[in-house]
């Protein structure tokens, strides 16, 4: 489908943040009708590159051509006008505004005398949402939607601009298979109509399924650029992380016989009559479609929301956990779905971020800074977090590295039960391997893990058992060999 019509070209883009170089002369181009994917490990500079393209960041040097013409005024406004629409990695929605208002922000439709034409906007918004195959009321306020639906609204907003270039920075990281399929449909349609698409994803199967070309960048430099058929999975990973990753999933079962966590007939906000258990040394997955209530379930176990009814027991003793504080006291930890909203202290240093949960656990009123630093450095090494110094504010880290800071912060509290909500969201393959190795070490030291993931291969590769949720209820339980994509999807749909 790729034409010979080059719509976009970036030449030698350089971008620094303070002293750190994020882009070191990256070049990139895009033809009409093409899906061109950018791959690279966390912090490679993918998001920075597309932010330069969208006008969000001003490059230090380098040139951008559209249809062969040099672009001088690099602002979001100009780039949008030039037909480049971007879906950013992090949410850029207006939570208090309705879906249709979000879709039309910055390009509101008016009728006579500059008066807003609400009915036209509502009608068109409905069309776009329907064409995306989504079930969202355009009058709803965005804050009432879950993470995946928000992403769909962002996609709708970009698609609605009828842009010639659509840039998508990890649009699928909060999606399940169903949503990914819908997304691909849309991408195919746009491609057919002649638009060019820049796609970023850490899911290599997605990359192979949709791309025409793959460009790999590492440490802010071009590494390779190939048609998708000409590069093997292994080579792609090698290009990205600079080493061989033989086996991503490392799972040797270590299940012991005691049940450490059990939920009986538990109902709460977003789920009902849930029964589940978790054994010492076990990794149990929770699968389901977006909006199935998985997040609510594990948030409630940790104490973020109270249980409406039912019973939670730890080590055979019934407990009542109504706040995260008591959750932690009972040896639990929760890694939440949205790191920006409720995971990180963006303005604070990595060092301070990692230490926060430990503050509530320590008896001593004083904090020894050397102890704190040693601890941070330990986890930075162990999880290969890419930072210039532990005193760097986390706001300047790439998405994947931010996620690792969160992992570090909870590992440091040494809980016995880990509750993970999409723990590897946005993490690159190489780093995923690090994380999975850590999980293995955790179960080997008798920790137990409950993991919510929309990535079925991840659940297949990691879990001893998987519960499948559908519309707030646990509908199936799969063990060992039963954990297959087919079985999971069959119960979830």
């Amino acid at each position, binding site marked *: 489908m790729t034409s010979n019509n080059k719509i976009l070209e970036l030449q030698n883009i350089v971008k620094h943040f303070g002293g750190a170089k994020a882009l070191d002369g990256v070049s990139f181009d895009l033809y009409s009708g093409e899906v061109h994917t950018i791959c690279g490990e966390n912090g490679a500079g993918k998001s920075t590159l597309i932010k330069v393209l969208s006008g969000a960041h001003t490059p230090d040097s380098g040139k951008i051509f559209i249809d062969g013409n040099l672009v001088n005024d690099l602002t979001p406004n100009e780039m949008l006008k030039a037909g480049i629409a971007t879906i950013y990695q992090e949410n850029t929605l*207006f939570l208090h505004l309705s879906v249709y*208002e979000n879709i039309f922000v910055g390009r*509101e439709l008016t009728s006579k005398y500059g008066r807003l034409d609400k009915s036209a906007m509502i009608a068109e918004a409905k069309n776009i949402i329907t064409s995306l195959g989504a079930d969202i009321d355009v*009058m709803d306020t965005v804050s009432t939607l879950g993470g995946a639906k928000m992403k769909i609204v962002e996609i709708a907003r970009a698609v609605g601009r009828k842009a010639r270039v659509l840039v998508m920075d990890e649009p699928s990281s909060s999606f399940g298979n169903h949503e990914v399929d819908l997304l691909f449909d849309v991408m195919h349609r746009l491609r057919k109509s002649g638009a060019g698409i820049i796609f970023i994803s850490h899911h290599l199967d997605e990359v192979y399924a949709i791309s025409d070309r793959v460009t790999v960048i590492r440490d802010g430099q071009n590494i390779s650029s190939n048609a998708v058929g000409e590069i093997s999975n292994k080579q792609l990973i090698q290009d990205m992380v600079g080493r061989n990753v033989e086996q991503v999933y490392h799972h040797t079962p270590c299940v012991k016989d005691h049940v450490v966590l059990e939920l009986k007939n538990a109902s709460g906000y977003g789920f009902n009559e849930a029964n589940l258990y978790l054994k010492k040394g076990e990794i149990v997955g929770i699968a389901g479609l977006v909006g199935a209530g998985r997040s609510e379930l594990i948030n409630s176990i940790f104490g973020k929301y109270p249980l409406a009814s039912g019973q939670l027991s730890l080590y055979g003793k019934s407990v009542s956990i109504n706040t995260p504080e008591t959750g932690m006291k009972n040896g639990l930890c929760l890694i939440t779905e949205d790191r920006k909203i409720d995971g990180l202290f963006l303005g604070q240093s990595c060092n301070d971020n990692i230490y926060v949960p430990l503050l509530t656990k320590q008896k001593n009123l004083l904090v020894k800074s050397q102890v704190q630093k040693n601890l941070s450095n330990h986890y930075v090494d162990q999880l290969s977090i890419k930072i210039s110094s532990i005193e760097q504010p986390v706001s300047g880290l790439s998405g994947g590295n931010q996620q690792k800071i969160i992992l570090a912060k909870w590992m440091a509290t040494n809980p016995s039960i880990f509750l993970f909500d999409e723990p590897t969201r946005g993490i690159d393959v190489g780093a995923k391997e690090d994380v999975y190795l850590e999980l293995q070490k955790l179960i080997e030291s008798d920790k137990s893990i409950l993991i919510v993931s929309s990535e079925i291969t991840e659940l297949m590769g990691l879990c001893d058992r998987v519960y499948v949720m559908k519309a707030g209820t646990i509908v199936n339980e799969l063990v060992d060999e039963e954990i297959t994509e087919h079985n999971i999807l069959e119960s979830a749909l």
Partner: protein
Amino acid sequence: MLNKSNDLNEKQPSKNDQTGVIGAQQFRQFLRNRNTPLLIGLLIYIAIIALIEPAFLSAYNIRNVMLQVSVAGIITIGMTLMIIAGQIDLSVGFLVGLTACIMAALLKAGVPEIIVAFSGLFICISSQMVTGLVVARLKLEPFIVTLGMMAIYRGIALLLTRGAEIPLDRKFEFLGRSRFFEIPTPVFIFIGLMILFAFILSNTVFGKQLFAVGENNEAAYLAGINVSKFKIKVYALHGLLAGIAALILMSRIGVGSPNMASGLELETIAAAVVGGAALAGGRGSIFGSFLGVVFLGIISNSMNIIGVSTFWQYIMLGAVVIGAVIIGGLNKDK
């Protein structure tokens, strides 16, 4: 009129926007509206005061209260825009004072009224634009920048007047003292501006973008809105409204004095917040602010009318402000 602009400004999700049927549905919407508890509270308050002292509802006093409220009311419109845009302005009280002093000095020097009036508007608009420029371009906190501006305006006004008042000698009486159909001109202007801005907020691109910019600067910028230019525009509008308020206030009191509007900044912020505006930006309504400014504005009048020591008015004021935001907060959760 009330119910109309009420609907116009509603930012809550409401799925029935298209329906035109008046009846049960409208009534249910009315009950769900954030401004409803405030409106009910205000009516109860008025009823109680009127029971104690019927003169409170005399035509004279209603006119009197509306007149007293109109200056704060006009500034509250501007403050509501500012707050929705995520801004705040502590300088407006002394800016109004300074502008009035300058206008009074010009009048004294024999400059024609019409030129004086336009100079006043010009001063307010341009000062606010400078503040807006500093805040928007340098990404500074408006709270602290406008606090600094407040001190500067105050200093200039004091230096200019040497602490005294400058009398107008009966010039410039039209704006503050004339009436149409028994209704004082300032009240006309106040209500007219309220309706105009209620319309602007819900029916124009400017209005929509105001909420977007206030809620999420960064996202608005990425959506192609020139955020700093937009903010400067909001400051300019706020300045224009402050200028109109300065003209009316000066005309009403008959003097230009540095302190003549001090305290108005906090009163108008309180009125907007009582009316449902969120200081974090992205939320607020003109009708809510109207209720807020009327509620706060009648407190002092009602205390005087029922003959209670004025010191009670502070306690009443504090109670109304806190009560309103508590009730607003409870309502929000539902």
